[in-house]
């Protein structure tokens, strides 16, 4: 004698049976309803699963590679190179078209110490800044040579970013020095 708890289970097992239910097995009205729903769902799922391939492609069960870990270093280098180029260009523009005139010679300060690697040595020359009361912001000729040298360095540096890390650094420092000294001169002139 089946317990009450087994009746719902038995009912659903009959209703959702994969095999056809023999005719001699009695089904109550609710079981018939459940069975009809189950058969309708099974039919739709059968249609969806119809025609499974016998030849399972190995790639179907093979482990897919995860998201390929692409090396991002080329992008990093490009970003660094672009930022350096931007910085150098900005410094060059500032030096080329900036306003202040120097009062003192920057040559000695710009010269790199001998122990530092600098494939693009800046020509250090002693020169006097000609001050002209009428032209407050006139340039010294020696400055033009040095700026031209920096320009050339920038162009050469732009040809191969990877190989010119250190020169780039040195150029950046030089330009920073230029900027600092120009700022100092401008302040002195304004005073």
């Amino acid at each position, binding site marked *: 004698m089946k317990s009450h708890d087994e009746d*719902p289970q038995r009912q659903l097992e009959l209703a959702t049976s994969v095999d056809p239910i023999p005719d001699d097995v009695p089904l109550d009205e609710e079981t018939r*309803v459940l069975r009809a729903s189950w058969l309708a769902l099974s039919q739709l799922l059968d249609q969806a699963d119809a025609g499974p391939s016998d030849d399972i492609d190995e790639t*179907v069960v093979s482990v897919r590679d995860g998201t390929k870990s692409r090396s991002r270093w080329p992008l990093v280098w490009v970003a660094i190179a672009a930022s350096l180029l931007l910085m150098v260009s900005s410094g060059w523009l500032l030096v080329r078209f900036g306003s202040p005139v120097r009062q003192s010679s920057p040559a000695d300060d710009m010269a790199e110490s001998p122990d530092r690697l600098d494939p693009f040595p800046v020509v250090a020359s002693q020169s006097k800044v000609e001050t002209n009361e009428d032209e407050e912001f006139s340039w010294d000729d020696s400055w033009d040579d040095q700026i031209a040298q920096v320009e050339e360095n920038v162009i050469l540096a732009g040809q191969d970013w990877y190989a010119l890390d250190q020169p780039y650094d040195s150029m950046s420092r030089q330009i920073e020095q230029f900027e600092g000294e120009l700022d100092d001169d401008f302040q002195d002139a304004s005073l």
Partner: protein
Amino acid sequence: MSQPNEQNSRVSRLSQWACDHHAAVRGYVMGLVGSAEIADDLVQEVFRRAASARYREEGKARAFLLRIADRLVCDWARRANREITVDDDQWRQVEPESQEPDPRVELIQHEGQQRLAAALEILSDSQRRVLLLRYYGDMEFAEIAQLMNCPLNTALSHCRRGLLALRKILVETDE
């Protein structure tokens, strides 16, 4: 010496499982996630885990695979933090994996596709899981309840309510 033999047996068993149960596992996962792309990834993960897991239940491979699939689907749903539903657009995104047309693609071309999608959509997540496990895994309700980590009566209730809900769409529509 024993390790290569064991590995070979695992590989051959996995190949046999893929041939015998891949469609059922994929159908089950597809019915729950509703996206072919996600289903394919999950199915591959199912077989990958099955290959490395220790299988001791001889003769119940499909139930074993569906247990793995169910766990993966639940994890996926938890990560996605959304209800597992099927809508028409997701069904239409099915892409065939092999040269032979995907059964789902044929389904899409037929009117039954919309009916199946609508039918699965009205079911709750638990109801859908119970019915699909019963269909694809031919599992006993006690097994289903154990897999879903719920009491047996709860699993039976899900099944019953799901079938009654489907009646309105699948049976009464035909009538």
